[in-house]
């Protein structure tokens, strides 16, 4: 096991950030921690990267205990925190050199590992880090986290606030790193990124809701979901919320995802009901479950 977390709890004053968390990440796995802000993702990262000590439970990373062998962990992991934390006044190259030096290596020695990513920012290597665009900062931070060739890479919300194009590119980079044998634990609030991980843990309010492969989590969803559409979106949502048999009503892109309390639900009944509410052009059809549906069902 590359990461082993057993019964970890952590509180800050009255706020309990993590409540009895346990899971394992296998070697070479791309593991996603999926949950909104405040779920406890960063606290867990800080415990695993030895920056914070848990109140209860144990954790090990790359075979080292997070408390006893914290120095070993620091030498063998790369950590990219959610907030940009490189030296703004150093240039791109200086930052990278700095991180290489404190880990007792050189840029040349592990250039291979960062090459794909670093070439994209190399034209700006004399620019100060503080003057880089968001996307470039992210690439520099990732290069710095990789320069000592870590066994395990921790990425805390690397794609938050990043546009869909850059997000896609970032995930392509992660896939390539995984192929080089690095274990990756990545957190994200974007549910669509869950599908790109080998396994995921859904987390909210310091508790794990479920851990499995994305496919298995989707398959566990207990109900049939229907895509509903009509001429007026707001009125449609209000009417569905007023329908006595509704189990859940969530806007999903151009449709509303609807589930019914009854096992023998007949869409025609609902169409009739919506017509009495003055809606037109109503369509109802079964649709595929997404991770987001599952998350919302578990978090209810």
């Amino acid at each position, binding site marked *: 096991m590359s990461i082993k977390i057993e019964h970890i709890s952590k509180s800050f004053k009255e706020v309990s950030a993590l409540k009895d968390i346990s899971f394992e990440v296998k070697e070479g796995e791309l593991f996603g921690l999926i949950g*909104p802000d405040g779920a406890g993702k960063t606290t867990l990262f800080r415990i695993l990267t030895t920056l914070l000590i848990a109140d209860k439970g144990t954790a090990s990373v790359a075979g080292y205990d997070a408390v006893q062998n914290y120095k070993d962990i620091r030498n063998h992991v790369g950590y990219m925190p959610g907030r940009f934390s490189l030296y703004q006044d150093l240039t791109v190259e200086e930052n990278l050199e700095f991180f290489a030096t404190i880990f007792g290596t050189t840029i040349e020695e592990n250039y291979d590992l960062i090459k794909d990513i670093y070439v994209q920012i190399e034209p700006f290597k004399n620019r100060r880090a503080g003057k880089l665009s968001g996307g470039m900062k992210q690439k520099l931070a990732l290069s710095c986290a990789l320069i000592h060739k870590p066994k395990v890479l921790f990425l805390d*919300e690397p794609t*938050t*606030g990043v546009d869909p*194009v*850059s997000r896609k590119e970032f995930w392509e980079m992660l896939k390539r790193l995984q192929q080089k044998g690095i274990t990756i634990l990545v957190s994200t609030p974007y549910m669509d990124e869950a599908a790109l991980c080998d396994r995921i843990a859904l987390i909210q309010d310091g508790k794990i809701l479920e851990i499995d492969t994305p496919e298995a989590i989707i398959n566990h969803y207990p109900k049939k979901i229907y895509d509903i559409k009509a001429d007026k*979106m707001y009125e449609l949502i209000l009417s569905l919320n007023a329908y006595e048999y509704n189990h859940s009503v*969530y806007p999903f892109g151009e449709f509303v995802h609807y589930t019914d309390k009854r096992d023998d639900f007949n869409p025609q009944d609902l169409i009739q009901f919506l017509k009495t509410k003055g809606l037109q052009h109503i369509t109802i059809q079964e649709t595929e479950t997404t991770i987001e549906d599952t998350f919302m069902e578990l978090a209810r």
Partner: protein
Amino acid sequence: MGRIKDGNMKKTNVIKAEKLTKKFGDFTAVNAITFEVKKGEIFGFLGANGAGKTTAMKMLIGISTPTSGDAEVAGFDVYKNAEAIKKNIGYMSQKFALYDDLTVKENITFFGGIYGLSRTQIKEKRTQLINELGLQEVTNELVASLPLGWKQKLAFSVALLHEPKIIFLDEPTGGVDPITRRQFWEMIYKTAHNGTTVFVTTHYMDEAEYCDRVSIMVDGKIEALDTPKELKKQFKVDSMNDVFLKLARG
């Protein structure tokens, strides 16, 4: 979306931009963008990081003077009446919305005062808002102690205190849990339904589908502008995510 067909409400333009441009030295951040937004419309303003969205928005809300071009917001000219624009719009962003070390009640009172509401109006609005959001039990708690989702919903309501004609939302739902994100959008629908124009930026492409019309900025220019349905048709794809990827990746 069907509401466009409803009545005459939609016919007035509340935002008009013509060849609106902003340069910083040699760099053209916003390059001659032209578009209109109608009353009561939910208008999605999309683009990759660095495409010029924030700069464009700053000109529209009256805090940055354009280099050239024209724009009228809520009936006021961005060059001559920037102050009047500020009084007639609401603004909320993920980065700044409320004062963390004031209580819920204090925040509402403070912003009510800033927006020039009378004491009676503030009291009335405060009660209404607290009841609508179900915040009765936390009125005297510091905003810092509220969950992010509650904060965002409260910030949205506060930005509407002075009943602005247009509300600008800059990535209002980043990092918010999926259930709250949807509750937030129900509030947006309701606001638009009541005739307030909603101008919103987001990185969630499913949210782009909730908009009546969407514009996509690439390198300072508006490269696409239409209903989500038409855009998907035009680019021959099934989702706004794919429209975005096609456009922004070239």
